[in-house]
């Protein structure tokens, strides 16, 4: 019982998180190469090489940061990604945790991510990181609002707050057809929440990488990993309908 309900789901979440984050990094590298940006020789080894390089670097310090919050924030963001992934239904039988209120739990992951990203920028006690943090709060609150409408939109036809019920409700008609706006809005929220690509406004170039501007070494590795990992449950959540009809 403890094997089925505790060890296997935790293993599944960790494996998907690590593999998914790696694939996100590979894709990112490939897209950057396709857009003509400077790229490594191999997209497959570049994320690993960069991760190994970050591990050997020194973690730098700023003047009087809030050490505990600064070091905890990347780890907490990674933990939130794991929590988000834990309620994703991979298949009709393969669900790490089929919580009755899993839709609401995903909403709370988004809200808590706002807190953690703010904390990451705020605790560095650096100007650009602080600007990035405040910028993300302003954006994050609007992302949450959009996401709530999308989540309510999938919960209403399912008459349930459980992701497995949401999937079951799409047996006849996919939500993509029933609510065409839901999917694009959710993808935008997913990109915004992980500030990836065009929506990278918290760690953007004009702020010299914003909340991560003063972070190097292993904490930076955790932060990068967490960002890539957070994209995995966001993407996985929308993949769910594709097997519902089968």
């Amino acid at each position, binding site marked *: 019982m403890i094997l089925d309900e505790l060890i296997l789901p935790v293993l599944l979440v960790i494996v998907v998180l690590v593999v998914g984050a790696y694939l996100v990094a590979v894709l990112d590298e490939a897209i950057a190469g396709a857009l003509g940006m400077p790229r490594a020789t191999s997209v497959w080894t570049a994320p690993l090489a960069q991760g190994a390089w970050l591990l050997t670097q020194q973690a730098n310090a700023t003047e*009087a940061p*809030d050490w505990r*919050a600064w070091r905890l924030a990347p780890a907490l963001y990674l933990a939130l990604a794991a929590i988000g992934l834990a309620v994703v239904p991979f298949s009709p039988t393969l669900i790490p945790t089929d*919580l*009755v*209120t899993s839709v*609401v*739990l995903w*909403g*709370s992951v*988004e*809200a*808590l991510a*706002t*807190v953690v990203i*703010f*904390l990451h920028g*705020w*605790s560095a*006690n650096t100007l650009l990181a602080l600007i990035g943090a*405040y910028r993300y*709060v302003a954006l*994050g*609150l609007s992302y*949450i609002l959009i996401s709530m409408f999308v989540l309510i939109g999938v919960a209403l036809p399912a008459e349930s*707050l459980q992701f497995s019920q949401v999937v079951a409700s799409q047996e006849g008609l996919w939500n993509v057809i029933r609510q065409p706006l839901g999917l694009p809005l959710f993808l935008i929220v997913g990109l915004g929440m992980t500030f990836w690509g065009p929506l990278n406004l918290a760690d953007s170039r004009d702020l010299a990488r914003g909340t991560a501007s003063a972070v190097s070494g292993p904490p930076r590795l955790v932060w990068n990993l967490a960002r890539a990992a957070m994209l995995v449950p966001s993407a996985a959540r929308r993949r769910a309908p594709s097997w519902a009809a089968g």
Partner: protein
Amino acid sequence: MDYPIGVDIAFLLLATLAVVSGWRVFATDSMVRASFFLLVSFIAVGVIMILLAAEYLGVAMFFMMAVEMMVMAIFMVMFMMNPAGLNPMMMVHQHKFSIAAGIAIFVVLAAVALLAEFPDSPLPADIDPVRSLGNELLGDSMLIFESAGIVLLTTMIGVVVLSSHRGRYGAAEEGSMPPGLVPGGDPAGMPEEEDEGGGHHHCH
């Protein structure tokens, strides 16, 4: 009731976390830290509520408190004297009154916990807490919840309107300016004007 020993262990750990982070709220020296310690405390209580099978209320606690504490931290930084939030500042005042009030409330709550007779009416195992909560919120008690919500909303707007009238450096309609570095001097922290002809002209 039979439940695994893990529930007891989790309850003890979470209760300790809730109490310790609740205490840190008053022991820390920054408004932002205080908000987030309060958030940790509420999250611990939310997980305890999930242990008590209040699945919706527990999870709702997470996202409500996350947004609430985030907005509270921002508003405190906006309205308080110390804008940065990372600088240390005294977070408590009226010590004697608050100690007395804290002890009185603790005694009352402890007396309720120890002396009250809690109803012993186990619910059927197949009850759906989310559905019954929804029926309660949007059924017989809807008028109460909705009017409480409207009252809270108007209170919030009223408080912001009343408190934003007076800014950090004086009343809004008089034009708030930071005080000078010397008595009667020019406002501090204003950008220096680049005029070659001598004589500084500040816009007041």
